[in-house]
């Protein structure tokens, strides 16, 4: 188990009760190793978001088990899940989701401050990361003063701040132009080449093609796609 970062055992999620019960994810068994680069594809309503939310510890499964770095997270409470999210998981959202009142540097340090990292260490780490995504000239810019591509790169810096085991990117290039999209993808690939596990949810077959492993979701069933 030592290099398996994600293991699911009959992972299921059901919404509602009785007759309006909808099973969004059906008994899923997968395992993802440290350093993998995975794309998850599937049409809208396929259960993709449900799967993402479970992997990201934003939601708890109805039945089954989910292990992250060997920890069974399926039985944790809200605050314990929050702790897993900030230590183990880095989120990248389609709509960047930066805090509008904070500048690039502050946005990148925020999750470290929740993680009780000292102020000097936070700033040093955030500057390193912003430098890596090519934004050292934008430290004091607020989200509204940056382009979509730049905002997404700040979001990448934020996601990496606490050295997560997994980076979960939900349509990371969905809201930016092709050139910025390519830049974001090459940053993510660069991070992956340094050993970071990357999971990308996407509609775009071109992006999926760049991944080393593709998972396809249809009607709540996750299947492996062989390249």
């Amino acid at each position: 188990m030592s290099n398996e970062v994600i293991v699911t055992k009959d992972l299921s999620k059901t919404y509602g009760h009785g007759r309006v019960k909808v099973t969004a994810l059906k008994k899923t068994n997968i395992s993802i190793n440290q350093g993998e680069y995975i794309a998850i594809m599937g049409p809208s309503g396929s259960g993709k978001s449900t799967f993402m939310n479970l992997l990201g510890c934003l939601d708890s499964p109805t039945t089954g088990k989910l292990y992250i770095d060997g920890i069974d997270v399926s039985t944790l409470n809200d605050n314990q899940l929050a702790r897993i999210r900030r230590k183990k998981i880095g989120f990248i959202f389609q709509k960047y989701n930066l805090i509008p009142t904070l500048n690039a540097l502050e946005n990148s340090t925020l999750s470290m401050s929740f993680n009780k990292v000292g102020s000097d260490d936070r700033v040093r780490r955030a500057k390193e990361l912003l430098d890596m995504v090519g934004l050292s000239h934008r430290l004091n810019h607020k989200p509204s003063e940056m382009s979509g591509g730049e905002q997404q790169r700040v979001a990448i810096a934020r996601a990496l701040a606490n050295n997560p085991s997994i980076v979960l990117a939900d349509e990371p290039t969905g809201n930016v132009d092709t050139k910025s999209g390519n830049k974001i993808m090459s940053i993510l690939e660069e991070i992956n080449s340094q050993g970071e596990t990357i999971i990308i949810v996407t509609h775009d077959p071109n992006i999926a093609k760049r991944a080393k492993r593709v998972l396809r979701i249809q009607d709540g069933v996750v299947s492996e796609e062989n390249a």
Partner: protein
Amino acid sequence: MLKDNVNLAYKNIKERLSRSILTLLGISIGIMAIIALMGIGEGMQEAVSGELSSLSDTIIVSAGGSNSDEFDLLTTGLGADNGYLTERDIADLNRIQGIKEVSTQLTGSGIITFNSENTYVTLTGMDIDNQNLAYDNEDLSSGTLLEEGDQNKCVIGYSIAHENFDTEISVGSRIKINDEKIVVKGIFSKQGMGGITSTDNIVILTARDFEKITGQSNIKAAIVRVTNPSEVEAIAEEIEQTINENHGDDDFASATAMSSLLETIQNILGILSMVLIAIAAIALVVASIGIMNTMLTSVMERTREIGIMKAIGAENKDVMLIFIIEGMLVSIVGGIIGICLGVFGSQGMASLLSGMGAGGPPGANMTLTPVITLYSIVLAVSVSLIVGIVSSLYPAWKAAKMSPIEAVRYE
């Protein structure tokens, strides 16, 4: 962490500046009211204490029966019309242990005529010895007190000399009291603060002149000074018993220690202050609802932001802290502004109140200086802190309870 939260709160307040200022104003007004009204209340108490504390060794003895209590003394002057002290009473008083001195005074009403204008006054007749015990030449702004052998002379209060007549009376002026020609020998300095001890409206005559003018020689009251102020209550009781025995009437005399009068007045002022502060507290409750309302709106507007923070690892307590600190920041800043406004406001209110006093009955005008105590400032700061915490608690709890999934999806 705290520094980050304060920074975050500051940015959010700045982002919604006009709304924050309005919320802050609510707190400021509430705190201002509390500070100002406490200052005024404290000022009133000090004015009264300052006036009366020199009288801690004094007992006012008056004949007049059961209804002659402290309030009658203040409102109607000395003694009701149903009895007088006798020479024997005064002699008995002098024999009571612990009494330093007894001074009697005659009291009656009269009309002063000056330049064909008339005014009603209360006349006081006293022996020269008694006058010299009660007053000093330093109490006068001009002239001197009466002396042994003076005839048809009087000493008058500041208001009578300078306010009651179109032409001011000065030392040497000839006035008429009940048609008797009298020369003014001295004029008291302005005293201001009213009550039983004010000299502003006094007219002092020798006992002999008093009898000649009014045709009365009745002792309505005696002023007793005791050696040891701590015995004043006990001695007052003994005086009452002694005089009541002399007259065979349980309710004949009343002996009131001025210190107990002071206590009574302070109690009344204390209650008055509490009422004022309770009114101010209503303003604070309204302000607190204002904060809660603003914070709830802010939580709604920032649903997405809260979701993001939770998604990247904020625990419920982190989210709560962000909103509570924001509420506290608004209320603390509002509180500090309120304290400043309150300090100035109380000065304004005091001069307004003093001005009103001057327009009222003479002798009732006192100069009121508001007293802002450290206690009231500490109270105001802690109240605003508590208001900030309490009113942001519910919005903060609502924010903390949000599901990160729904919050992130929120548009």
